[in-house]
């Protein structure tokens, strides 16, 4: 026998066999049949919205409407309202200011949520110190903050951004602190055993472990941010998609209301898709 034969613990064939045995673990079930085709999946996803659009159109055909126009605007009327508002420059301004409020509030709330969630998840001291207080704050219904914020900050930008930040904070805080509690202790011990200190352990084990949860929290936070934005703008604003809603309500402009709803849906979905892309990339990198 050559030395190399004794040295190699297993032959290539044995490795291949071992690997085969290992293969099914942790793999996604392969998609079968037509659903494997991305185009088919996109078409399926578009099916229900298109059917709804068709029903909407059929119910509101101008001249022969089943539902009268003062109850429901037709798709064409909504489109025209959109074009009209865009020409007056309002649409762009409203969409931009709402997006700005969401992004600022989301960034601030999510950043604070990461820090607070990290502290509470990693340190017993901060858990006892911050946990109960934040639990109480979270129990306050979101709309209850609005009058207070308006008294403090008037109907300016601050009050809205802060409300959005409150909305974005809690999903991030909760998911991050919980995920840190559930990090595999064995791996934390590995980090310690191989000489990592607090920061090294955090960067090499805890952070990668909780990244998937961080992204889940961020996506929930983004949904909350849009929710809180509309609340803030409904209750006191002179601009924004929420203001378009409340103005439409007082003027009886159903077309404006429907337009605002559709724009909020599209904006929410688009911002979520961006986060989902980052999440997919992170999941590939850290799983």
């Amino acid at each position: 026998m050559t030395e190399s034969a004794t040295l190699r613990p297993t032959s290539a064939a044995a490795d291949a066999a071992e690997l085969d045995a290992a293969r099914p673990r942790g793999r996604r079930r392969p998609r079968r049949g037509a659903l494997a085709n991305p185009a088919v999946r996109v078409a399926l996803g578009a099916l229900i919205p298109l059917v709804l659009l068709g029903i909407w159109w059929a119910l509101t055909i101008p001249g022969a409407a089943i539902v009268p126009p003062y109850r429901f605007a037709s798709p064409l009327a909504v489109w025209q309202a959109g074009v009209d508002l865009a020409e007056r420059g309002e649409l762009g301004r409203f969409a931009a200011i709402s997006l700005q409020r969401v992004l600022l509030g989301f960034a601030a709330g999510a950043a604070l949520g990461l820090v607070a969630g990290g502290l509470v998840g990693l340190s017993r001291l901060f858990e006892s110190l911050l946990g109960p207080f934040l639990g109480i704050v979270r129990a306050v219904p979101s709309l209850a903050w609005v009058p207070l914020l308006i008294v403090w900050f008037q109907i300016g930008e601050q009050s809205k951004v802060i409300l959005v930040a409150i909305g974005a904070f809690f999903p991030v805080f909760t998911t991050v602190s919980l995920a840190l509690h559930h990090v595999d202790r064995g791996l934390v011990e590995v980090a310690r055993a191989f000489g990592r200190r607090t920061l090294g352990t955090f960067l090499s084990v805890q952070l990668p472990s909780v990244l998937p949860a961080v992204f889940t929290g961020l996506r929930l936070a983004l949904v909350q941010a849009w929710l809180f934005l509309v609340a803030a703008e409904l209750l006191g604003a002179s601009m924004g998609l929420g203001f378009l809603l409340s103005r439409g309500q007082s003027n009886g402009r159903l077309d404006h209301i429907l337009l605002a709803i559709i724009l909020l849906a599209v904006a929410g979905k688009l911002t979520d898709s961006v986060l989902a892309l980052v999440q997919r990339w992170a999941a590939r990198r850290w799983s």
Partner: protein
Amino acid sequence: MAAVELGDRLAGLSLGRSTPATVRVTGLGRAFGDRPVLEGVDLEVAPGEIVAILGASGSGKSTLLRIVGGLDAATAGTVTIDDHVVAGIDDRVAIGFQEPRLLPWRTVADNVAYGLPSGIAKDAGRARVAALLELVGLDDFAGHRPRAISGGMAQRTSLARALARDPGVLLLDEPFGALDALTRMRMQDLLLGVLDTAPTTVLLVTHDVEEALQVADRVVLLGTEPDRAGARIQQIVTVPGARPRDRGSAELAELRAELLAGLGIDRHAH
């Protein structure tokens, strides 16, 4: 030939930190709550010696190893490594855990690199990882993630990670437990080969009598006496003969029967 080359390469990569250390366990006890697990364990391991720790499941083998490694604290007695009392992680000690415990988001190579001592130059580290992967036969899987390799391969990765540290004391908790019999024997030879080129004091936990007799200079049998709750050292056996040992020799067969009896297994009853 290849073994010699690789051994030379590893020896060349020795970081000069791995002077084998003396491990001294004195009057060691460990209780969880009011349930004693270990009681009055005394053991001295000479530099470069390989000591196997045998015992039934639950006899406190892992607990003993964790205390020596500074991951757990004794409730009585002390452990010293080269006259330093162990009180926490010592960077001359490397541990191979009972489970592979690989970081799932790192490749096999990066997991091995995780064990490198801090302060090692990048190139030296990379060369050392490559040599270790070759040694444990995983060079073709360097870029794989842990979820894409088998349990046995994960255990070999874990062993390579511990070796990467170039330790003065190597603590191995059933490092070959998940391997098939053939791979297990090869890995035992391989470990001995590594220890020839880079001598280290080794505490090897196993429940496999055969493995203990092949690898160790001495075998320590942990066990519980009928009237006591905690496990103590029942027996310390010096294994005769130079390695590699003849698995069929009569002398070893006698020791094997003795150790199995110590573990509470009567060979003739089977």
